[in-house]
């Protein structure tokens, strides 16, 4: 009995990101912010970001508690969407959520996710998909408002 298969999910980069997450804290005077909560495990994350007049994400940060997957995912999500337009960020969110659900995407699309694409194996751990998608759901909520919630349920 060993934990070899676990390395599919907990790749080095995920554990490194989880142990040393990027873009933590709060943006001062954010234009957008949201709280997300995973009631099944108690993970709570708070996201803030600043959009400029062209709707570009100029700054983004998160704070809160969570497992390695949710911390790494939040860290990687914030890194990849920083500097992107709202539209591009939402597109990335869609690619990520499709990937997590095991839907096919072109390699080109997956590349757009940057480091976050290492979570592709999350679909082999169905109980943990929510941990990975929580911060992307937060991104949708933060950029589009809470109306989008239903779509994510």
């Amino acid at each position, binding site marked *: *009995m*060993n*934990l070899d*298969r*676990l390395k599919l*999910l*907990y790749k*080095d980069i995920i*554990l*490194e990101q989880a*142990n040393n997450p990027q873009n933590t804290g709060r943006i001062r005077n954010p234009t957008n912010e949201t709280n997300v909560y995973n009631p*099944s*495990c*108690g*993970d*709570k994350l708070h996201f803030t970001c600043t959009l400029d007049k062209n709707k570009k994400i100029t700054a983004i940060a998160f704070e809160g*508690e*969570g*497992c*390695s*997957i949710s911390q790494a995912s939040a860290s990687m999500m914030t890194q990849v969407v920083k500097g992107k337009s709202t539209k591009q960020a939402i597109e990335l969110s869609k690619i990520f959520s499709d990937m997590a659900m095991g839907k096919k995407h072109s390699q080109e699309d997956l590349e757009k996710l940057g480091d976050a694409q290492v979570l592709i194996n999350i679909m082999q*751990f169905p*109980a*943990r998909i929510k*941990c990975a998608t929580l911060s992307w759901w937060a991104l949708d909520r933060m950029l589009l408002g809470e109306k989008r919630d239903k779509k994510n349920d």
Partner: protein
Amino acid sequence: MNKINNIRDEFPILNRKINNEPLVYLDNAATSQIPISVQNVMREFEQTARSNVHRSVDTLGNIATAKYEESRNLVKELINAPSQNDIIFTSGATESLNMIAFTLGNKIIEKGDEIVITIMEHHSNIIPWQQLARKKQASLKYIELCDNGELDLADARTKITDKTKIVAVTHASNVLGVINPVGEISQIAHQHDAIMVVDGAQAVGHFPVDVQKLDADFYAFSGHKIFGPTGTGILYGKQKLLKKMPPYRFGGEMIAHVTRANATWAQIPQKFEAGTPNYTGVIGLGAAIEFLNQIGIKNIQVKEKELVKYVLPKIENIPGITVYGPKEWAKHTGVISINLAGIHPHDVATAFDELGVEVRAGHHCAEPLMTDLGITATVRASFDFYNTKADADALINAIKQTEDFFNEFR
């Protein structure tokens, strides 16, 4: 005890594999497994005698009613209730507790009254009282814990006052694995003329429960945690209180007479069992109690104690482990909540799952307790009598491997 050793054959699920590893089932506090004998009783009833209860003069209806009522008698004996008319069948402990809050609770609680619960309650024994208190502008007070993870009885004496109308306490914690002195709390409650409600979901089936000795006014528990089917639960209540208690739901079987303008109620307990009950489930629950009786609750208690005595000191000796609740094995039920330093409980549970070890990670429906402990979640291993020392060793091994796996990256 030989019966116990061969008993795993009654639970075929224990032979399955999880992620190519033998299943080590340590989530018994959430739901216990169901023996073949119980499944057979339900299947046989469905195949040979399925019929609605209490509403027919035909042979099948009579068989179904007799079996259903036999289960009531078995429950009565299991918890030593004075009469089988004190036993109400519900869908589970949650419904049992809601029933008291929204019928008798709703009737007796007034503005300014107090409801006293403990900080270690499951949400099902918090939220019904919280909602009732909010609706009635009553106050909800919590009995706190001592530093050793046990309930603070001195605090109970302070919190329960003449304004207290209801005291609701869990018999055994689903997180801390501690057994509460509900008999003593009953006495305190009764000195102030308060009603004593006990949540026995983690107690029944693990050690002998005697509602008369505890002097509990109400006692709630679930069938699926005592080797019975899901969707079955019990509410025991003292007859004098059940007589004061208004019906919970209205419909078939709970009436005496109905006219265009009014209705009168059936006898207790039918008054509280509106609609077609989960009769096959209740008959299965009866079979589960017979199964418990065959093994003997005291034997189960001894076996669980042996397992805890074996595993708890081993867990406590692993570096980086926090154990919640009492540190002494003798004070512990089979429920053991832990955290591994720096590793989130969900990561731990995923690693355990890879090794076939099924535990629960999360807040265990006890968020106020988690908040007080300064954590968001724990990993909970819960043993039952069909677990083995090999299961305990598998848990210890899983903890060590998980620590090694995650600590490599620090």
